[in-house]
Structures are given as C-alpha cells and as structure tokens.
C-alpha cells in the first residue's frame, strides 16, 4: 500500500495538472455562469410574461437533466449542427450552460425574499431598470446568496469529474490514467478524493468568512 502511494507521488505532476484543469474549468465556468445567471434572474423577474416563460422553460430544463447528458449533447450533438469545439471547450461550455440555470434560480429565490424597502428607496432616489438592478438589488442578492453559490461551486467541482468521460484531462482523468498505467487503483483514486476534499473545504471556509462579513454589514 505504501509502495502504491509512492508510485502516485512519483506521478504527482500529472495529478497536479489534472487539479489545475479542474480548478480552471470550475472557476471560469462558475464566473461565466454567474454572469449569465445574473441576466437570467433579471429575465425571470421581468414584467414581460413572454420573457419570463421562455427563461423559466430554459432554466427548468437545465435543472431537470443530468450534467453528463448535457456534456454529451454539447460534445456529440453540436458538431452535427456544424458547431465544433474541442473536449476542453465543450466541457467548459457544458458547465456554463448547465449552471447558468441553477445560478438564475438561486439569485431569483434570494431576490424574491429581499425586503421591499431598499428597492423602493432606490427607485425613490431615481434608480430604475438595469441601473436599479445592478447597483441596488444585485449587491444585496449576491451577498445573501453566497452560501448557496458556495454549495453550487462544490457541485460544479464534482460535476467536472464527469468530463473525464469526454476525455477532458481533469483530476479524475489524471488519477484514472495513473491507475491504468501502474495498476494502483486505491492509491490513485484516494489521492484524487483527498484533493477534491481539500478544494471543497476551502470553499466551505470561504463561505463561512463571507457570511461573517455579511453579518457585520447588516
């Protein structure tokens, strides 16, 4: 067993490259999906009923299908429509599209719970439309949504593991390639699990910190 772990340790550079890919995919995917989610949340709270229905259908579809199915859809089905991406971009695209729906739903939920006073005060001061949304509503919504966004971030990190199936060189893919070369299944995958655990612990600690800051602000 110790010998197995030392084999993994000798190949730690491969594991770290996988970890880097997982980190880059998750953070860029999260940021992009949060940006799209911000627009979608506004669409979900819009006055125009057509806009609301269309966005609702889109968001609900994303929340209904498994992530892997969407990744396959982007990877295999988009090329048949003439859109070609490599594995890495397909993976990122799948993460962004999938999580934009979840982010929109998280932000909308928090927004609906927001006290009316600050929004009314904002409009009394002459803020309206996007200006009101981005400067008055959104900062409060994002701050209050941090715990849920943190949970979603953990979900995203775990979802990136699915991307090994479409040959994206992320952490689980790296562990799997070490295991298939040296046949050290336990050591390879346990090392990957430990790294996932570390990433999630960092996020949880970060969320707790932000929650404390949010409490002080209130």
């Amino acid at each position, binding site marked *: 067993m110790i010998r197995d772990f030392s084999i993994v340790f000798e190949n730690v550079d491969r594991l770290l490259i996988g970890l880097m890919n997982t980190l880059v995919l998750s953070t860029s995917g999260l940021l992009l999906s949060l940006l799209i989610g911000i627009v979608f949340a506004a669409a979900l709270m819009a006055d125009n009923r057509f806009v609301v229905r269309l966005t609702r259908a889109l968001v609900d*579809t994303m929340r*209904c*299908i*498994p*992530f*892997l*199915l969407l990744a*396959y*859809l982007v990877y*295999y*089905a988009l090329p*048949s*429509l003439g859109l070609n991406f490599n594995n890495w971009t397909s993976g990122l695209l799948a993460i962004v599209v999938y999580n934009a729906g979840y982010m929109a739903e998280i932000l909308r939920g928090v927004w609906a719970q927001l006290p009316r006073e600050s929004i009314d005060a904002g409009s009394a001061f002459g803020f309206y439309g996007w200006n009101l949304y981005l400067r008055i509503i959104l900062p409060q919504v994002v701050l209050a949504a941090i715990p849920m966004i943190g949970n979603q971030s*953990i979900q995203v*990190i*775990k*979802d*990136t*593991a*699915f991307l*090994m*199936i479409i040959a994206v060189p992320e*952490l*689980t893919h790296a*562990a*799997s390639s070490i*295991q298939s070369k040296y*046949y050290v*299944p*336990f050591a390879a*995958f*346990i090392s*990957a*699990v430990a790294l*996932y*655990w570390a*990433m*999630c*612990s960092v996020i949880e600690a970060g969320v707790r910190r932000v929650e404390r800051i949010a409490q002080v602000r209130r």
Partner: protein
Amino acid sequence: MTSADLISLLQGAAVTVALSLAAIVIGVPLGLGFAILVWRRIPLVQLIVKTYVSLIRATPLVTLGLLIYFALPAVGLQTGPVTAAILTLAINTTAFNCEIWRAGLMDFPKDQLDSAQAFGMSWPHTFRRIMLPQLARTCLPALVNEMTLLLKGSPAIAVVGIVDVTRAAVRIGANTYEPLPPFLLATALYAAIVFVFVRAQRWLERPSKLDEVRV
C-alpha cells in the same frame, strides 16, 4: 432511430430507476441510523460518521465509482458492475440523507422528548411513536430533493460499465450518426422520472385522516 433503439433507451431508463431505487432503499434508513449516532453524540462513532459525510459530500460520483470498481477487487472483494454501481450510489446518497435526517433531529423540539420521558416512554418507543412520524414529514421534501439529485448523478455509473439511459443514448447516437434525437428523448425520460418522484412526494404529503383528528 429505430424501434429497437427506442426499446434500448427504455431499458436504460429501467436500469437508471432500478439502481437509483436500490440506492435509495439502502441510503434513506442507513442515513437515519448514522444521523441518530451523531445526534446521540456517541463518541468516536460520531467522529467517524462526520468524516464519512464530509468526505463523500466532496467526492464526485465518477471518482467514487472508479474507486469502488477498481479498488475493491484489489483488496480481494470481487464485485460485478451492478454491485459496484449500487454501492457507489448508496454510499453517496447515504451521506447526504444522513445530513438531512441530522438537521431534522437537531430541530426536533426538546419539550416533546421531555414529555415522552415524563410519560415513561422508552427511547425506542419514543422514537417510533413520537419522533419518526414527525421527522419523516419535515425531512421528506429534502429527501426527495436528494433523490432527484441522485438520479441526475446516476449517469456516473457508466464508468463501471452499466448501460443506463445516458449511455444508451450515446450508443444510439454513435450508431446512427444522429445524436440529437436519442439525447432529446433521454432528456424527456429523465424529466418524466423526476416528475414521478416529485408527484410521489406530493402524494405522501397529502393531509391524512390523522391530521383532521388532530385539528
């Protein structure tokens, strides 16, 4: 897509539902058992359960599946794909169910336990007659939510060689060079399965005759 393709997709759906249900049947009661161990602050056991929950919450299903499928035979336990798949899903969902039950237990009003004790009820009796009926109610929405999450994570078991809906759709797409129709059909199948779970929750939550008596 031929009718044979359609049948293989439906078979995949049956596999997805069967394996997920197996994991739920194992995971819901086991999660409750673990939650009680933490709630009663059993030393050491509580620490082990907490570590297990924290680890599994952070582990992707794909990684867990690969670990179980490849590492168990290495320590001498031979598992087929089906056993490995059920184990993977059950180990995962048990951890999340444990968290849900634990939250329910923490919120359980203490005065009810005190009154049960005052009436001379034993702990198993209190649990069965006082706690469980209420816990099941309060935890049900979260448990069903976790079941739908499990269903959405279940395509991960493709890595141990199980042909579920997603895998069946990929195969059909690869054979016909037209991946879009099977993928869309698979999407509809998942939506239908999740819908059934949510409806089952509504049905379980329906007001019972007991409630009327209580009011």
